[in-house]
């Protein structure tokens, strides 16, 4: 109660991120020790490219969670956006139209979520779970079990291309990280999002337009899902109704492992990036070491618990 956050030179956010980086390094060291190829530049670039997809999705989710919300529909959103983008591109042959369609769809879904949560006041968990099913339904009906594939190289570069020897998605990841961090740390909106997440009522009574901010994060989350869907599509060069379903839990995992609190008001995009890297490193390592995929959920689960548990313990050490 009288306890005081020690060592004011580091904010709790920074401390959390550092601990994650440490975990990542240890993990990397472990895998590198077992498999010589892990540290190849090529492999590390793979790692980054595979992480970028999760990160793009998780970055939007991070904003939502910071604002005290949750978005379970991002995976489904990716699927629908990708399918729309794909068919639009096929129909018009223009990557731009495709991208526009995907992004628009993502934003639209995000807006619906935002409105359900802020206006109808449905708890985010339920609202986005409901939209998840609806989006799946629409996607299944729209694709009628078929797949669309084969897109112009110009578009595919978005997912599988290189620039100066580095995969394009990695640049996207960097851009989103920088812009997002700037938005959160260096703009009034960012501050208001943190404030809303930490104590919605107090924020509202301080004149923070909490409804708009909450709406905003869901729209952004939808937009990021749209962007992710494009990268995803470009990477797979094919769209199917079930793409992206697996991504939601991975994104949530990245956010949580990254140290963003589900209670809202504390966390960072850097943390989420590290979280995404940790998740990918595990997968990558398992492939390199030829470990059966059956182990993957177990290992991921343990990492989630461990990383958040470590925080709790250190918190306990600091305060009584």
């Amino acid at each position: 109660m009288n306890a005081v956050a020690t060592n004011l030179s580091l904010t709790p956010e920074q401390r959390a991120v550092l601990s994650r980086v440490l975990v990542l390094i240890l993990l990397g060291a472990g895998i590198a020790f077992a498999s010589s190829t892990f540290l190849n530049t090529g492999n590390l670039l793979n790692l980054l490219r595979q992480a970028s997809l999760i990160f793009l999705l998780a970055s939007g989710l991070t904003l939502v969670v910071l604002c005290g919300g949750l978005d379970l529909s991002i995976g489904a959103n990716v699927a629908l956006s990708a399918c729309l983008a794909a068919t639009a591109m096929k129909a018009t042959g223009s990557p731009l139209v495709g991208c526009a369609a995907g992004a628009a769809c993502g934003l639209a879904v995000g807006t619906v979520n935002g409105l359900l949560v802020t206006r109808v006041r449905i708890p985010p968990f339920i609202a986005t779970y409901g939209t998840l099913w609806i989006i799946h339904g629409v996607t299944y009906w729209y694709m009628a079990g078929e797949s669309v594939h084969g897109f112009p190289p110009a578009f595919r570069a978005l997912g599988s291309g290189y620039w100066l020897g580095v995969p394009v998605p990695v640049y996207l990841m960097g851009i989103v990280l920088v812009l997002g961090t700037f938005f959160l740390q260096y703009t009034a909106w960012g501050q208001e999002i943190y404030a809303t997440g930490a104590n919605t009522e107090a924020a509202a009574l301080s004149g923070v337009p909490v409804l708009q901010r909450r709406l905003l994060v869901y729209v952004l989350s939808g937009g990021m899902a749209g962007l992710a869907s494009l990268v995803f599509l470009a990477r797979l060069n094919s769209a199917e109704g079930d793409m992206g379903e697996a991504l939601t839990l991975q994104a949530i995992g990245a956010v949580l492992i990254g140290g963003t609190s589900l209670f809202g008001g504390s966390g960072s995009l850097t943390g989420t990036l590290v979280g995404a890297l940790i998740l990918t490193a595990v997968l990558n390592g398992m492939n390199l070491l030829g470990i059966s995929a059956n182990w993957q959920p177990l290992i991921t689960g343990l990492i989630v618990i461990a990383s958040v548990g470590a925080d709790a313990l250190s918190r306990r050490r600091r305060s009584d």
Partner: protein
Amino acid sequence: MSAVARRPIEPLTAAAPAPLFALKGITKRFAGVTALDDVSLDLHGGEVHMLMGENGAGKSTLMKVLCGAYRSDGGSFEADGRPVTVTSAADARRLGVAVIFQEYSLVPHLDIAHNVFLGREPRGRLPGLIDHARMHREARAVLDRLGLDLDTRRTVEGLGIAQQQMIEIAKALSQQARILVLDEPTAALSDRETERLFAVIGDLRRDGVAMAYISHRMAEVFTLGDRVTVLRDGRRIASMPAGEATADELVTLMVGRKVDMSYRRDDRPAPGARVLEMRDVSATSGIHDVSLHVRVGEIVGLAGLVGSGRTEVARAIFGADAVTSGTIRIDDRVHRGGPTQARGHGLGLIPESRKQQGLALSRTVGDNLLVAGLRRLFPSSLYRPGRAHEHGASMISRMRIATRGPRQVSRNLSGGNQQKVVIGKWLLAGTRIYLFDEPTRGIDVGAKEEIFRLIDQLVKDGCAVLMISSELSEIVRVCDRAYVMKEKRIAGELSQAELSETNLLRLAMHHD
């Protein structure tokens, strides 16, 4: 406290020689910080033992140790002269200790009876099952004793803050405790309920119950207390029969420096233009046809019993509750919309409950100070952490907030300092019209005086203030005018000349 004076409590007859309960040299540390340092306290049957001290002096900690919520790091306990151990709430309960807590320890979705008997539910015939009939019967009896006519099957959710406090009291009474601890029980009560409580305390004293009573109100020390103990910085500074104590002496002991309680409204220039005006405003929160106005350079009080609709008025002005009819004007321009617009018009609300509505406890002092001022200090919406830190630091020193700087987490501040942060938040937002809702609740004497001076300074600087308070004396001391509310309506207005506790009370009381 004229209301209380009308019902004097007969002086104490010989107290039992051996204390019912004694704490000997209690020490308690939190992560290195010593909250209690070798504190001893004797509680005698049939005696009300007043505990005084500033916030952070260790009163509440001491009580929590006494009732087993905290484990003491040193010292011992004695009951009826025999050594006992108190390491859990269960222990304390077994020894007959009951506590009326300051933060309400009620469960919103349980009904009143369950809250009263929380953890002590009477067992039914079948093992493990609760005997609801008996529980409600007994709960009924306790409520009647407190003159509380509420259905015991009603959930406490939605009860007024005063009613909640009364149920807290019922909870403690129902335990038939031999040792009763009261932690600022009247902080939330209007004078009417206070009166009722004091009557009960009188009965308990006659029944030989030992009571420890924490208070920030001088008047109570002398109307209730048999013995006074003053704590400061976790140490026991002095103990004396209440009769021998004087207000100034106690305050000096508590604060450790001389504070003049003589704060009086020094004459201010005549108030200027009407900056805030309500005309026949009704709101979803239930207030009806409320009309009032506040002028530049004046402090207007808003008095009334708890639950009379004072907070609702403030919220309506601030746009926190939807207005259904009537108009609110600021600088003669009609004001609509929510808190954001209100802030834009120069309004600021210092809400009733700091912890829930005033602050984000998990965020730093700096963040909390800045949150309302963001738009003003960073008009471009570009937030500069460096400048923000400076703003925070300067406000901390200006408000004399006791903290290690803008990066300390707000949770760790004392009540008074948290309140200063909330006020500072609005100073940084460039507020012109302040709505104070119980600004001094649970704040120690020293901080109270500071806040009064601050309010005074605000109006001197050309701001306007509307102040809600349950302490009539406060209204009388601080305000230029006052409106009194009753049953969600304005019951009347008192000019500076008419402003007196009796008049306030007369307007506020129900005549039934």
